[in-house]
């Protein structure tokens, strides 16, 4: 993998990501978006975040991950539900996955 292609790739992805993010804020003033549509956008954002976390917890690319990762995320999820601080959630998730892997070999 050449340095140039990696840098160009990073710049392209960065530019596209910025364009996607800026569409709403830049068009919003010229576009009257009804309150119900805004609520729907908000719901859409939550749906996408949950889908993203679920797939990244259970899959490694297109194949299922080992059980340690979802187990770690589940422990983190229970702690988050019980309103534990974020750092505790993350450390518990990583720690659980690491522990299961250490025990399971």
């Amino acid at each position: 993998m050449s340095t140039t292609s990696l840098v160009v790739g990073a710049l392209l992805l960065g530019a596209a990501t910025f364009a996607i993010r800026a569409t709403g804020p830049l068009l919003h003033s010229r576009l009257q978006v009804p309150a119900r549509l805004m609520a729907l956008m908000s719901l859409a954002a939550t749906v996408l975040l949950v889908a993203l976390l679920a797939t990244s917890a259970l899959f490694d690319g297109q194949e299922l991950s080992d059980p340690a990762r979802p187990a770690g995320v589940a422990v983190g999820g229970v702690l988050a539900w019980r309103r534990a601080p974020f750092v505790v959630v993350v450390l518990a998730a990583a720690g659980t996955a690491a522990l299961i892997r250490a025990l399971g070999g």
Partner: protein
Amino acid sequence: MAVRPLTFLRQWRDDLGPALLRDIVLVNLAICLVGISYGAITVGEGLPVWLPNVMSVVVLAGASQFLFTGIIATGGGVVAAVLAGILVNLRHLPFGFALADTVRERPLLGSYLMIDEVVAFSLAQKEAEVRRKVFFTCGFLLLFFWNLGSLLGALLGQAITDTEVFGLDAAFPAVLLALVMPALREASTLGIAVLGAAIALALTPFLPAGTAVLCALLALVAARPWRAEPP
């Protein structure tokens, strides 16, 4: 405006309140940990040590950065990695509309800082002024801590070879879960989000990276958006 930095900071702290500030700091420490896992995994896959930080400044979107690394590591090539990253980041389109009002005064800077965690954290704030302050405070801190984590991780990745031993791959989904938790306490939102996740999980083995996540939006039909009256 000639405001002394300390006065400014004190004002900022008083505006947000200690509880909210503590939460923001804790999210950022968590993001720093995810950044460490990102940097370590990327360098562990044989990519150059400067790449995590270049990506973390230029792209500033964790999920697509993980994906970019993953595709190049499995031999997919830069073009596929960029396209997949764009696909994953298409979810920021509704974020932009949802937060358009919040970043109204600084749309370009606001768009740059529109990171998953900042979005989730901001949307959790009901009051517009608080939401705006949370967005920019959290955004700037995240830019810093995500890069700090990426740097530490990249250096760590040179030293250790197997990052999964430390369970670092579980950190990213766990942070997202913690961040959407406030929204999920609402039963109707939870139902639709679970349906969306089920759709995405069912489709992931069959679709290109990122597409399955976008298909989760089909679950919005369950919210019956065509109804004239809000539920």
